[in-house]
């Protein structure tokens, strides 16, 4: 079938069966949350509260640290109990604000405006005030994406509903259960950048979501729902843009705006809609808790800052011993050392693996089989990059495309020698950056 897609890519087992039929459940309020100051790309936010302060749900507790940054809001009502280093979903320790709940759920005052009447300025201001960032992965501040320079007019907004990472089903569920808000959010995004076209890209293995969205947009001539071939990484920004528009985003740091496109995740569209209509800050999101050993895998609407431990308890715990905890999807997610890690605005999932699934393989020598070359969606030569890195030849690594790697992990997925390609390529990236600085 002539479904749209991109060159390269792999077909990992999608493992979505655990949670794909679980309707979104709103979780009980956590007793404590930890809100990292850096949940996004750009400067960390700066705290504007101190220990002991009383806060409401939605109250700003940290101000954006610059234009490319976002502000943070409390996700429960209670007291600021600590400001300091906490575990972060990226597997590191990072600055965060801890809030101990008061058991109530007292919100700041929200509004209910008619979104059609908002000026573009007011719309962008509300998005920025609400601390919205891309909720699909990297967490790029949304208001920045919506402010392209004049020389890059935008004609298309693409909503990313691909969710190509195995296990994750949060986006799928919101496309089924909150499609109206997604479409309303898309329209707002389109008007914010004056785009004439809107596209919602969904992988073809989610026919229910595709049909539902198509049904709801059948009277919207400017909005198209596009079914995409099931292939990883179909949801990577450049690959999605290519599949949906046949435009190639220039590499070496090129941005989607260069081809007149802005991409946002479907969850972000909802956050934008709520920010515009209710002035509601981004303090909760849907997250998938899954894995073979999870007793009751779920898609949970939970507050930002909720500990993985609490999320897992809400799912009934695990049936056997946990060996690995993953923030996000299994292809690009981070393994974290503890369940005392808080979810953030970009947390799409938490996966729990047992020792069999967490199986570790030793690296062998490269067979030069070329499988990594065949699957790389960026058309790089991963094996030769790694080879050059091993011999400290970073110019060579650069030539084979080290800087264009999007870390999708396809190469490592197919490598028979179990070479940790992404880590080697990361070393190349760091070394090349160091050299450029000199």
């Amino acid at each position, binding site marked *: 079938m002539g479904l749209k897609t991109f060159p390269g890519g792999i077909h990992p087992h999608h493992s979505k069966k655990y949670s794909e039929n679980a309707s979104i459940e709103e979780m009980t309020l956590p007793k404590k949350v930890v809100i990292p100051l850096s949940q996004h790309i750009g400067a960390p936010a700066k705290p504007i509260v101190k220990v002991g302060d009383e806060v409401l749900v939605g109250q700003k507790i940290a101000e954006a640290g610059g234009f490319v940054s976002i502000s943070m809001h409390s996700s429960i009502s209670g007291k600021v109990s600590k400001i300091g280093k906490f575990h972060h979903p990226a597997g590191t320790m990072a600055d965060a604000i801890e809030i101990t709940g008061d058991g109530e759920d007292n919100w700041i005052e929200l509004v209910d405006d008619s979104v059609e009447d908002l000026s573009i300025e007011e719309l962008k201001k509300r998005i920025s005030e609400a601390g919205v960032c891309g909720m699909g992965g990297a967490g790029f501040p949304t208001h920045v994406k919506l402010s392209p320079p004049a020389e890059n007019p935008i004609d298309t907004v693409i909503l990313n509903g691909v969710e190509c990472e195995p296990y994750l089903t949060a986006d799928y569920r919101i496309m089924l259960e909150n499609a109206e808000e997604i479409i309303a959010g898309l329209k707002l995004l389109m008007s914010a950048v004056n785009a004439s076209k809107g596209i919602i890209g969904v992988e073809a293995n989610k026919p229910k979501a595709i049909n539902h969205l198509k049904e709801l947009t059948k009277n919207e001539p400017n909005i198209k729902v596009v079914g995409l071939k099931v292939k990883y990484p179909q949801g990577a920004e450049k690959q999605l843009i290519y599949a949906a528009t046949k435009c190639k985003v220039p590499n070496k740091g090129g941005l989607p705006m260069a081809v007149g496109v802005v991409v946002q995740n479907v969850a972000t569209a909802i956050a934008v809609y709520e920010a515009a209509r209710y002035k509601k800050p981004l303090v909760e999101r849907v997250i998938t808790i899954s894995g073979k050993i999870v007793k009751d895998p779920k898609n949970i609407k939970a507050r930002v800052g909720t500990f993985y431990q609490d999320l897992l308890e809400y799912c009934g715990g695990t049936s056997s011993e*946990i060996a690995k905890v993953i923030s996000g999807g299994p292809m690009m997610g981070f393994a974290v050392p503890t369940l005392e890690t808080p979810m953030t605005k970009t947390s799409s999932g938490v996966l729990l693996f047992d020792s069999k699934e967490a199986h570790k393989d030793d690296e062998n020598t490269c067979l030069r089989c070329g499988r990594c070359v065949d699957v790389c969606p960026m058309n*790089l030569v991963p094996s030769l990059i790694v080879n050059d890195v091993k011999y400290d030849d970073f110019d060579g690594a650069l030539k084979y495309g080290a800087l264009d790697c999007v870390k999708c992990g396809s190469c490592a997925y197919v490598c028979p020698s179990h070479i940790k390609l992404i880590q080697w390529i990361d070393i190349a990236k760091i070394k090349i950056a160091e050299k450029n600085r000199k």
Partner: protein
Amino acid sequence: MNKIYAVSAAPHVKQKISVSSVMWQVVMALVPALAVAVYFFGIQALMLSLYGVTAAVVTEGLIQKFRGVAVTVKDGSAVLTGLLVSFNINVAAPWWIPVVGAIFAIAIGKQVFGGLGFNVFNPALLARAFLVASWPTLMTSGWIPTNMNSLSGITNFADLSTKAQDLITSATPLGVAKTIRNIDFLGASDTSIVMNKLAEIATLKNLFWGNVGGVIGEVSVAALLIGAAFLAYKHIIEWRIPVSYISTVFVLTYIFGGVDGLFSASLLLPVFHVFAGGLMLGAFFMATDMVTSPVTKKGRIIFGIGCGLITVVIRLVGGYPEGVSYSILLMNIFVPLIDRFSIPKAFGEVKK
């Protein structure tokens, strides 16, 4: 609650594939070819293969012990090398030929370079070259016909001169093709009759099923294709090298293959050249050897075309009837260079 879990880098799921699964699958893909050889030449084909495999495994194990590195004979790569060495040997050869070949392949072809992944040349082909140089008669003559009494694949030749009949019953298909390129050998009229017989359907059928003389692994096109299809399905070999190799041979032998100048051959002659000799074995199982072929996609095509070119030059103008193994060995030398000069443009590369 404060339990600490081991962390590791993404991706956290991986395809179920390993060096040994790759190697064993290639070995499995060669079994049909071996089975056909046993069918046409008897149990000796199997015995020679077992000698080669055993020698390769023992040599690899001993050398690895001696070098003090992990013994990896279970990964199937030594088995594969031993099998491929034996596949390049005449069924009539004595038992020690595959043994010496396999020892050479492992010791000189592989371990001297540092083991799997570091060798420059295809070890099995290097061993074959060594055997041919050391025992040329054992390696390149004394061919025996199949149990259906076919050697060159031509089975109806009663109407020919005795000299032509002698040739047909004593040479392999490529041997016949080579000999008659010297028109004076049979005279113009017999040459063209034999030429036609080489490329007629009956002969091609024999070549396809394996009812011809030759080295153990190369005789049956059908069996090799089954194995190749399996590997392609499993994404272990990729189409670029075999397809560019075989099509180059096809096109060039069509243009230059006839004995009366350019384009004088029938369209079946290139088919003969593709089916005959070691091309199928070479294109699908030797040129595609991962370690000794380019990793870039463009590089694989260049490599395949290069192999095809050299093969045809050797077959049509060189001193040997067959050129597959030398062509691959020669191209092996250029692999690093090919990789360097065929770096692909990254997705979204800005056109200048």
